[in-house]
């Protein structure tokens, strides 16, 4: 504890010393950011400078970021794999859910909610280059839609489509899709992650070149990855993969 006290005091003093050199809050000039903002509309016909920075100017960072998420999902699968055998035992004493009147109402509400949430997610993903939002945010919303269906208790539908392996596949496809679009840039335009589509009309849904495509692949990847993570942590046997007991 004294080690930490000493270290924290020193670190605090040093941080203050360093932070004092930053421009006063609100006075940042930031030539780089301003340049990117001013290139967004004329050169990419998109309206969200953040989305274009994320997926076009600095697309490689985002590629890495998607694969970090992908790594985490695979990592969670690996780290919790010893669990499932246990959970079968642990979950058994828990009474199987029998639908009561209440839960039936809940279920219909949640199922009814799932559809609009799905639409919202799709909207956020597809408008990423125009308005705030994009593949990541939309992907999490899409994931929530699936989760709602499960939380409502109607997990039979999900079990039927073997979600975990499907979701693992989805995240793989989404992540690889991003990289493939990057390779497409090499073949069709000349550089990795270079845009190879027309830019369309500013403000249109189909504009901004490959940015919307990248948003879609990120959306799929994020949805899959987070469903895998949450599904693993949810400790439910309904998420049974092929080959597991």
């Amino acid at each position, binding site marked *: 504890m004294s*080690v*930490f006290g*000493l*270290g*924290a*005091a*020193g*670190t605090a003093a*040093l941080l203050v*010393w*360093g*932070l*004092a*050199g*930053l*421009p006063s809050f609100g006075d*940042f000039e*930031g*030539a*780089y*950011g301003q*340049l990117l903002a001013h*290139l967004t509309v004329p050169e990419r016909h998109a309206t969200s400078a953040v989305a274009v920075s994320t997926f*076009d*100017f*600095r*697309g*490689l*960072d985002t590629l*890495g*970021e998607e*694969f*970090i998420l*992908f*790594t*985490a999902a*695979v*990592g969670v699968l*690996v*780290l919790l*794999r010893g669990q499932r055998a246990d959970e079968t035992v642990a979950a058994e004493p828990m009474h199987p859910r029998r639908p009561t009147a209440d839960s039936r109402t809940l279920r219909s509400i949640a199922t009814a909610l799932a559809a609009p949430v799905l639409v919202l997610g799709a909207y956020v993903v597809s408008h990423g280059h125009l308005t705030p939002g994009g593949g990541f945010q939309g992907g999490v919303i899409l994931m929530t839609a699936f989760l709602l269906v499960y939380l409502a208790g109607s997990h039979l539908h999900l079990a039927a489509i073997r979600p975990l*392996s499907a979701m*693992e*596949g989805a*995240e*793989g*496809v989404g992540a*690889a*899709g991003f*990289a*493939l679009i990057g*390779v497409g840039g*090499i073949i069709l335009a000349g*550089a*990795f*992650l*270079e*845009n190879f589509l027309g830019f369309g009309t500013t403000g249109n849904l189909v504009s901004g070149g490959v940015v919307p495509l990248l948003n879609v692949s990120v959306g799929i990847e994020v949805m899959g990855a987070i469903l895998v993570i949450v599904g693993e942590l949810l400790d439910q046997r309904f998420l049974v*993969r*092929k080959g597991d007991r």
Partner: protein
Amino acid sequence: METAPLAVAIPLLGAGGLAAVATRLGRAGAEAVALAAAVAVTALCVALLVRTGSGLEVYWFGGWEPRAGTAIGVSFAVDAIGAGLATLVSALMIAALVVMWRYRETEAPHFQILMLLFLAGMVGFCLSGDLFNLFVFFELMSVAAFALAGFKVEEDEAVEGSLNFAVTNTIGSFLVLTGIALVYGRTGTLNLAQMGGALEAHSVDGLVVMAFALLAAGFLVKAAVVPFHFWLADAYAVAPTPVCLLFAGAMSELGLYAVARIWFDCFAGALGPEADSLRLVLIVAGSLTALLGAGMCFAQDHLKRLLAFATIAYVGVFLIGLGLLTAEGIAGAAIYVVADGLGKAALFATVAIIQHRRRRVSELALRGKGRALPFTGALLALGALSFAALPPFGTFLGTSMLEDELVATGYGAVIAVLIATSALTAGAVLRVIARVFLGWGPAADRPRATEEETKPEEEGAPDSTPAIMFVPAALLLAAALAIGLIPGTTEAFRTAAERFVDGPAYGRAVLDGVSPTGLATASSYSAPAHSYLYAALGLLGAACAAAISLFVPGGRWLRTPARLLGSAGTALRGLHSGHVGDYVAWLVLGVALLGGSFALALT
């Protein structure tokens, strides 16, 4: 010309593809895909290495070339040092994938997916020319490494080791991120080359010093420099042995690479006038790390922990080389990194064989159990000689160059640290050989309960070593020897280092597309006579250390010093408590110490 991006894209595509078709491919398929990807990446990296030579290859992603000296997109800026490290990483990855072909501890295809992601992270990290992009690949490599370290979740140690690894290294990456925020607030750019110019244009103040201190601290957590080192032995001891090949052979060194990269390309322009005092700080930190690592290495019984502490010791040595802040120091460190990385990887591969054959990794428990494995013992002996920096191993050239440069900069006394490190680490391995393969030394009266074998022997130890495990270890050692024997290596390393330290030329090449003026190939290096003397001294020291620990458990005249030394050792071991909160407390203190000494040194 698409070599650099493909070197990262191929493993990523491989990983994504494996996940997409996971259940249909089976184990052999996953292994084949992973191996094919690793071979392809190695080929691309070798091509990059050959092509860069003494130059610099810049690649702009998305085709966003800089406009009027302002970078727009993210760049890879590849020089021979970066390409060389990437080559080392991918070659070790091939070796690891081959060794684990028969490994039971791994589960396809997730293990292969994680390995490919780890590879992509490390290669991207070596090639990137953008500070935030460096962070992204750093994080990719870290997250994959956390999962790999904890892969054997059925073991208590693996869970705890991976947890300590993940918590400390994540804090390290927050330090890096805070440093990035500071530099971006000052310079308004993330491109390393542009950053160098912008920092130089402004007067030096607390922000610049702290930005460098935070970035360095974050990367040094990964490199495991004292007192950031606590997590390393925990993580390396528990990771599947093939993964250790990569952890010990390359990952730690990548942290140092990043520190050198940001120093020469970003901060040297602004902080260069104070380089002399910085040199002192880095050399002291390196010496402490080297001595502590070597001492703890010698005190270990668990073979993987022993090699893990040897990794820390050599990180210290490399930090001394980097800390010289000269081309010659970088050249020496680089040649040492490659030779030692191959040597350590070979040692871990040999430990994998021992584990495969005898199902345990505790030195005392293995006493005399290696008599029937002469070839494995021979591999271990060669590894020990590589640690001892004996000619003609590549490590000898590395130490010799460092020794010369230490004398030239007035730090001749530090040579003693290099010799002590060689002697203790080599001595530890020699002791293992004597005890395990020759049965020397007293039998253990009480094997330590905490260092139990990984699996009970009864499980049926196989009675032969598969060639697939033996050959990679032998090849790695052969490569470590070849570095020291092939004529022309020293010239190549010296030329590469000259290019690496030339920050202004890097800046012009990246931003203005001016290809750097051709460097005259540096002259070849031949070790002076006293280097041979030092090497002999190191080997002698190693033999003595091994003999004393085997045969002199406590003669009367040794008792008091031994007890003193023992209690100091116990206190030191007590600090390595496995408690993550303690590790973080030390980490914070380390940040304060490093930042404070940078503040004193650089203003």
